[in-house]
Each structure stands twice: as structure tokens, then as C-alpha cells.
């Protein structure tokens, strides 16, 4: 007990003895820890924020009936929508059923896609629409027309269009012209029930598009769950989108990881420079301590405890500064407030203590000091 209190007493004096040099090391550690803590906070939050952002970029999972032979289109029961809802999967951001109907506008053939507009809007907020969106899934009067289809049919927002399929017809008013760069550009999108009525396919859908949030592995897990709960239907992730999202997330995480490594190396070099100067100052003290009977491990424990304390302090101060920095980065880059994550604190402190101990390498060399030479003044 007395020895431990003496250890702490000497440690306290050591921390006060070379305040200038230790302050430089502490600044290097705090700066490094601040950037690391900020990046770790951003990393933890960025994945969540980015996957949320990705979910506005279109469907990433498709549910469809297996293909059938002949000319008949494969169709599924629209009750699949209720079964998906009943599963209560929190990662599902939006679910949009589609029924594709081959129709005619006058003599021009066109594909009519019946869907739920509210869900389509949630998963495709990036669609460019000239005119107005159709907000409600129950709106049976309006439609959106793909930009190429509008050009061929001579339609504009406010135009009326009459569609015919066999003996059935439906009249719609064009709310907006939509440009997606995809198949929708050649289609007319309308209310699901309108399309079912026109095709005479009440209660049927061609496929269901889902927007599922999460990392690629989480999306895979949701896909498996859906597949198990929806026998007789194909549940497939849209590989290109999932892979692109995974690549972007991986690159951001890689960038953050290597930035942290680089910052830690730079911090360590800063600490190393201070500690090298400190080691020169401490040679005489170490020589004396060895002459008094101090073993190398016992003496080194003092200096490593000093470096470790600096690392812990640097980690703590750096974490606090990092929270502020993360908030700033979050607002600037993601336009959201990134909240402080407490699990980053022990990681930051552990990393900074590690850097401080590695930077204290010159102090460890003091163990080789020969007391006779030091005490002679060599």
C-alpha cells in the first residue's frame, strides 16, 4: 500500500516535472484522439444515415411469382401485401405492388403500371416530375406518364388520356410527366385498382418492389426471412443496387479506417518527438534510480504509467472534442446531427493509450542506461 502510494506520488511529480514537453505530447494525443473519436462517431452513424439515404434511391428487393410457360404473364395474389405487412419487418421502408397491363391509347400501345403512389414516392423521391406528384394510393383519377410515353402520345400535365384493354376502358388525367431513366419512362403509372379493373385482374399483381434499409448482409437476412414466409414466390435482392450500396459503405468505412490509422501514426510521431527529448532529460534520474537499487521493470513502470496517463487524458479530452467535431461533420456532410456514442469513449482511450505507449519507446530505451556512466557525467 505504502509502495503504491509512493508510486502514485512519484508519478504525480513526474507529470508536473516536464510540463512543457508533456503538454506538447498531450496536444498531439488530444488532436489525434479528437479526429479518431469524430470519425468513429461518424462511422457508426454514417452507416445508418447512408442506408437511410440509399432507401430513397429505389427498390432493392423484388418479389415476383415464378415464370409460367406460354404467353400468360405470371401473376401473384395481391394478398401478398397483407402478408408482408403482417411480418412487421422494421427494415422495410416502403412496399409497392405493381400490375403491368398492355393497353392502348388510341392506336398506340402502351404499358400501364398500376401501383401504390404513396409507396412509390417514398422509395423514389429522386424521380424528376414535371407537373405534380400523385400522393394517394386511392387516387383513381390521375396518372403519371413516363417522359418517352408522353412524347409519343403527345401528353402533358393536365391532359386527359383514355386507355383501353380489350373491351374495358379507363379515363385518366395526367398529373405529371416523370423521368426516371428506367422502364417507367415508357409507361403510364396509375392507381393499382384502376389497372386491375382495366385488365380484369382484380386482386392480382405482377410483382412487389421493396425498399429495405441496412447493410448488404442485413438486406440478405430480410430477403431470406421474406422468402421463408412467402412460399411459391421468388424473393430476390436487386444485386446491382445492393452491391453498389455495399461498395459505397465499404469505401467510406475503408477511408475512415485508414484516416484513423494515419492520424494515430502522426500522433505517435508527435509523442515520439516529445518523449525523445524527455528521455534525454531523464537519463540522469534513471541512472540514479538504478544506482539506488531500482530494477529496470520498476523504473520503466513509472515512465510507462506517465505515458499511459497522458494517453488516457488525451483520449478523454479528444473524445469530448471529437463529439463536437462529429456534430460539425454530420451537419456539413450528411445534413444531420450525429449524436455522441458512448461506446466510442473506451475505444478512443484505448487507442490513445496505445499510441502514447508506442510513442514512449525512447523512454523504454532508458532501461539500458548504465548508472556508472551517468553518475560520472558522461
Amino acid at each position: 500500500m505504502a509502495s503504491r502510494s509512493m508510486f502514485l506520488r512519484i508519478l504525480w511529480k513526474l507529470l508536473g516535472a516536464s510540463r512543457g514537453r508533456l503538454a506538447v505530447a498531450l496536444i498531439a494525443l488530444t488532436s489525434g484522439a479528437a479526429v479518431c473519436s469524430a470519425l468513429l462517431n461518424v462511422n457508426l452513424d454514417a452507416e445508418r444515415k447512408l442506408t437511410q439515404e440509399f432507401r430513397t434511391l429505389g427498390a432493392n428487393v423484388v418479389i415476383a411469382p415464378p415464370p409460367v410457360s406460354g404467353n400468360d404473364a405470371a401473376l401473384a395474389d395481391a394478398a401478398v401485401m397483407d402478408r408482408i405487412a403482417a411480418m412487421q419487418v422494421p427494415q422495410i421502408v416502403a412496399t409497392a405492388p405493381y400490375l403491368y397491363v398492355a393497353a392502348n391509347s388510341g392506336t398506340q400501345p402502351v404499358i400501364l403500371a398500376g401501383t401504390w403512389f404513396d409507396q412509390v414516392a417514398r422509395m423514389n423521391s429522386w424521380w424528376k416530375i414535371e407537373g405534380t406528384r400523385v400522393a394517394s394510393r386511392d387516387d383513381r383519377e390521375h396518372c403519371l406518364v413516363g417522359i418517352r410515353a408522353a412524347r409519343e402520345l403527345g401528353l402533358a400535365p393536365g391532359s386527359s388520356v383514355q386507355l383501353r384493354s380489350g373491351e374495358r376502358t379507363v379515363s385518366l388525367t395526367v398529373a405529371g410527366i416523370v423521368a426516371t431513366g428506367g422502364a417507367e419512362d415508357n409507361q403510364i403509372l396509375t392507381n393499382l385498382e384502376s389497372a386491375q379493373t382495366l385488365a380484369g385482374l382484380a386482386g392480382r399483381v405482377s410483382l412487389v418492389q421493396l425498399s429495405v434499409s441496412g447493410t448488404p448482409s442485413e438486406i440478405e437476412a430480410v430477403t431470406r426471412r421474406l422468402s421463408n414466409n412467402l412460399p411459391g414466390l421468388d424473393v430476390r435482392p436487386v444485386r446491382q443496387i445492393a452491391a453498389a450500396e455495399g461498395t459505397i459503405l465499404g469505401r467510406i468505412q475503408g477511408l475512415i479506417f485508414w484516416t484513423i490509422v494515419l492520424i494515430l501514426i502522426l500522433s505517435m510521431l508527435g509523442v515520439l518527438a516529445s518523449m525523445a527529448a524527455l528521455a534525454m532529460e531523464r537519463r540522469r534520474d534513471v541512472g540514479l534510480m538504478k544506482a539506488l537499487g531500482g530494477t529496470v521493470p520498476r523504473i520503466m513502470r513509472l515512465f510507462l504509467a506517465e505515458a499511459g496517463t497522458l494517453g488516457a487524458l488525451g483520449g478523454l479530452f479528444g473524445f469530448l472534442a471529437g463529439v463536437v467535431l462529429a456534430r460539425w461533420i454530420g451537419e456539413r456532410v450528411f445534413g444531420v446531427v450525429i449524436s455522441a456514442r458512448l461506446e466510442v469513449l473506451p475505444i478512443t482511450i484505448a487507442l490513445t493509450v496505445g499510441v502514447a505507449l508506442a510513442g514512449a519507446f525512447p523512454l523504454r530505451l532508458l532501461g539500458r542506461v548504465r548508472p556508472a556512466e551517468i553518475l560520472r557525467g558522461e
Partner: protein
Amino acid sequence: MASLVHVDQLEKRFGEVRALDRVSFDVQAGEWIAIMGPSGSGKTTLINILGGLDQPSGGRVLVDGLDIGNLSERELTRYRADKIGFVFQQFHLVPYLTALENVMLAQYFHSITDEKEAADALARVGLGDRLEHVPGELSGGEQQRVAIARALINQPKVILADEPTGNLDEANEALVLKLLHELHESGHTILVVTHSQAIGNLADRRVELEHGRLARISVPSLAKE
């Protein structure tokens, strides 16, 4: 009675230079020995070997039955903590520790610290009112007295003093010599390296070195009286 210190044909070479050349002598427990000689005669080298700070190149050195030449680095460290009390010309106190803590540092490396015992040791050398002063706040004489208190705190078998008054004025020199004299009177074994004939005359015996060789061992007339 066996000698406390037995030096037999001791040699120390630094490359081609022979710092000590077949030096032999014995020291009995309780003796005050002055090690004398001109600069470069090997006095400090001898003290360093006796103190376990350096290893001999040849010959034997036995202190309290321990053969220093056969000790490992770890055993030498333990030997210094247990058997030796050092007093240096340059005082060699840790500048950021108080007088009390400098004394306690020797206790810390020896076994456990005892603040009261350290304070008593400082009081014995007349520094009872300077416990919390750091070396920079003490005079040269006071610093040397702290070093003496530190050397004594673990009750060493031998006190080794290398020019202990070399950096002191006359008044402080007298104080330090009085302390050494008191230690001698109380039975401590003291080996002092010195250039000073006056200090040499206070010793029981003088071991005189020249060019690393033992020139003579003499008994000063003052000690004989």
C-alpha cells in the same frame, strides 16, 4: 574475523586502458577508509565496482560475503539496494522530488516506504524543517545532507562516498564531515574517495592509488592519536 570488504588482485580495463591493476586490500566492519590518489588513478572506478555499478575485469571483490564479479545484473541491483549507501560529489538528488521524497525513493526501491522514518533520517542530518523543499530550494550542503540521509535510510552495510565535500564551501564541508564522523562513531563502515589530505587524515586508514595500482596503505597520524 572475516573482512567486510575483501579486494583481491582487482583489475578493471576499459579497452586498452588499465584503470585498476591488481589492487588488493581488506576493510573491516566499522572502519573508515579514505581512498586517495591523483586524478585518473582509479579511485572512482574502485568505488563503482565496490558499489556494484561496474563489474571487474579480473580478480575478486567480496562484500559481506558476496562475490560481486559473479552477480547478474538483477542481483547487482538488489545488492545496491540492500548493502550500499551512495553519497556523490554532485549530490544526485531527483530535482522534482522533495527532500523527504528523495529519501523515500531509496526506501521505495529497497522494500516499502515509511514516511516517518524518512523524516527522522532528515531530522538526524539537521533538515527536519526542510522536508518539503525540492533540491533547487536547498543549499549545496543541505542537498548533500539529504543525500547522506538517503544513503543511510536502508541501513546499508557500507557507505560509499565519492568526493562528498568536493562541491561544498568550508562551513558545509565541516558539517558533512561531522556527520560522517558521527556515522563512523556509531559503527558504520565508510569508504570515502577524496583528494583532501585533511579528510584523509580523519580516516582509520588511507588506501592510496597511483595509475590504477595500489601505491600504499597508511594509517594517518590523526587516527592513531
